[in-house]
């Protein structure tokens, strides 16, 4: 009997010490919430931004004294980093007739879905008149395609950026080769740079499924002069070209199909890649302290991307992030006031000063931006060269891109022939209508 008691005491001790741990943990930070959430007070609005923009948003609100001016308290909450995880949260909340936050900073993929679903509200009546004039023509054109649904604007963009073409100027100089200007030039570089045994490739990309592969498919098809979602000749050219790069001219590492951007960047800074397409955040990564030893301007030079059969005008495209208001927001009036404010020229400039997450081709922003900054210079170069096309659009973007990724990935890994892959894509896309 004594032994039994011992074991029960242990059991209690275990629970007890665990509970004590919890109690101790309860002493830190903001109080945990056990029961009913505190009612959201009047004149409060919640804005969800990614962790990478949290501080910037707070700085912006402080710098402009939004709360002092309007009497509206703003709580900045964190949204997740992918469309998949954030949709998990929004879809269930909005279906339940409520919303975890009022305003959200969101990407292209979410915009088409949320606006068509009626999950976000139209903003035309709250957009300040100065905004459209302040947008560059490309940004206006872009917004009409990507931020609008049936003629109404659902998102006010503040981040407008494009994949850049980064290359190792030091390597190009060393080998005495020129920056490629056409697809044929790119193919030829396979022989120049690729050293398969040592894992060095002329180029690499992040092509894993989950909206990574789609970016490249759209980018290449745009260079071919078309929209991949039409599944037409341009898309066929694009797929043939990608397959050629991977398996014939050996310029593009086929292992790209299992990589995301983080892996792609890792390979680039490990001297495994001569050039690549990548979003501007790579500039941050390359210049970060972690890569201080490796970094030199020569290694992250930026040039205009090689033009495809479609011509120089569609060598790359811009994508954007912007603000929208959740339809089931409990504080619609305050949310509108906040978004209307964020759309002003003044706020746009202040936001850019708070951080480059808020850099776009707005005239007032570009004027106020530090001219010697690499990103500003790159954006100006691409704008001046006129290489920025409109991102290939499909009204049911998230579904359509999934279909293309499934079928294209199957083709590129030899599970389907090119014809089968395209037939299937066409068939499934037709079902979306």
């Amino acid at each position, binding site marked *: 009997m004594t032994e039994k008691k011992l074991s029960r005491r242990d059991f209690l001790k275990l629970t007890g010490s665990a509970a004590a741990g919890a109690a101790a943990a309860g002493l830190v930070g903001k109080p945990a919430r056990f029961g009913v959430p505190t009612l959201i007070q009047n004149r409060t609005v919640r804005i969800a931004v990614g962790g990478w923009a949290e501080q910037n948003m707070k700085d912006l609100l402080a710098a402009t004294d939004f709360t002092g001016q309007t009497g509206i308290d703003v709580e900045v909450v964190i949204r997740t980093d992918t*469309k*998949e995880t954030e*949709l*998990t949260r929004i*879809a269930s909340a909005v*279906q339940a007739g409520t919303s975890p936050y009022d305003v959200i900073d969101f990407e292209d993929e979410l915009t088409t*879905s949320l606006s*068509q*679903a*009626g*999950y976000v509200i139209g903003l035309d009546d709250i957009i300040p008149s100065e905004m459209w004039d302040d947008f560059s023509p490309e940004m206006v054109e872009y917004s009409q395609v990507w931020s609008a649904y049936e003629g109404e604007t659902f998102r006010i963009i503040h981040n407008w950026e494009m994949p850049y073409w980064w290359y190792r100027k030091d390597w190009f100089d060393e080998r005495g080769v020129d920056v490629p200007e056409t697809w044929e030039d790119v193919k030829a570089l396979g022989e120049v740079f690729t050293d*398969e*045994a040592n*894992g060095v490739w002329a180029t690499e990309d992040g092509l*894993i*499924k*989950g909206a990574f592969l789609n970016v490249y498919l759209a980018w290449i098809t745009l260079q071919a002069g078309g929209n991949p979602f039409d599944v037409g000749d341009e898309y066929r050219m694009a797929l043939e070209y990608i397959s050629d790069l991977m398996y014939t001219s050996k310029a593009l*590492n*086929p*292992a790209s*199909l*299992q*990589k995301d951007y983080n*892996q792609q960047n*890792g*390979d680039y800074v*490990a001297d*495994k890649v001569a050039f690549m397409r990548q979003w501007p955040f790579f500039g941050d990564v390359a210049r970060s302290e972690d890569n201080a030893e490796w970094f030199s301007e020569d290694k992250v030079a930026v040039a205009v991307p090689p033009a495809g059969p479609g011509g120089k005008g569609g060598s790359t495209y811009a994508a954007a992030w912007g603000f929208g208001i959740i339809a089931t927001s409990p504080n619609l009036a305050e949310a509108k006031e906040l978004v209307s404010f964020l759309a002003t020229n003044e706020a746009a400039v202040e936001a850019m000063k708070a951080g480059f997450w808020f850099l776009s081709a707005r005239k007032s922003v570009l004027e106020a931006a530090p001219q010697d900054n690499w990103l500003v210079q790159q954006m100006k170069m691409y704008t001046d060269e006129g290489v920025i096309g409109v991102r290939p659009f499909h009204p*049911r973007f*998230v*579904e359509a891109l*999934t279909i293309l*990724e*499934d*079928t294209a*990935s*199957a*083709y*590129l*890994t030899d*599970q*389907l022939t090119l014809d089968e892959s395209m037939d*299937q894509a066409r068939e*499934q896309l037709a079902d979306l209508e």
Partner: protein
Amino acid sequence: MQKTSAKDKAAPAQRQVRWLAPSRLAQRRLLLFVLLVTPAFLLRLTTAAYPITQTIFLSFTNLSILKGTNDYVGLQNYADMTGDYGVQQAFSFTIIYVLSSAILQLVVGMLIALLLNGTFRGRTFARTINLIPWAIPTIVAGYAFRWLLDDQFGLIPNWVNDLTGERMVVFITPLGARLAVILVHVWKDAPFMAIVFLAGMQGVPLDLYEAAKVDGANAWRRFWSITIPMIKPLVITMALFRVVWSLASFDLVYGLTQGGPGVATSVLALQVFREGILFFKFGFASAISVVLLILVGIIGVIGLRLFRRADVTL
């Protein structure tokens, strides 16, 4: 109160609470049963009954937020499923994935449990590290293995390269990707099987082994005729739930391959996530869920049969 008869000892399957005689107090026994089971049932009822009925109901509608449709369509969703390439592929891989990983996990889990139940120096160490794979969040594990198998900086491809000179690129062939998904699943969850089996083995009365030894049974025989029968209900339970969980989860596939290349490693639960959460096609997603529900129902019946049989032969 009625004394337990000697007959009960002879027929262990009928070891039941006897202090309330069935003839006189059946109602009180029922009441006691209900009382004990109620909290668990209340919990399930509040959180499972509504989702299940709603899912079944939705599966007969074409509720799609983007299309703006919400009508009763009978079995249309189920008919559509048979023609849907993604669902078909996902269905076949789901079966492969669930069965092969469940069987491997059972076998490996049992071997690990046997090891951890042995006496050797370092046993505490082994028992401690055993649970680490399972303690890693699945998404993190998926991500970690993507890096472990990276063609440039992955540990395993580098070793393969050193040994053979071949560069190993795992996820760009369907076979490689499928193997990786299944093996990582086994790596991650077999330890979880093992710890339950281990606890079960420790609950086996020692005198059974002693008696068998007196009868001259060797270790192998003792394992098959004592250990296995004694923990058989556990083995069945674990297999059953392993299958149910694998059917319903997609986070490993999500972290490791995103269902690629092509749709080679796509599973039904991933399709539910896509169709429901990403595409807002709640009707169609619900229909896929119901297919999973039916699969689980069938497996549950089989599991219960086995469970009862194991119980009787104990």
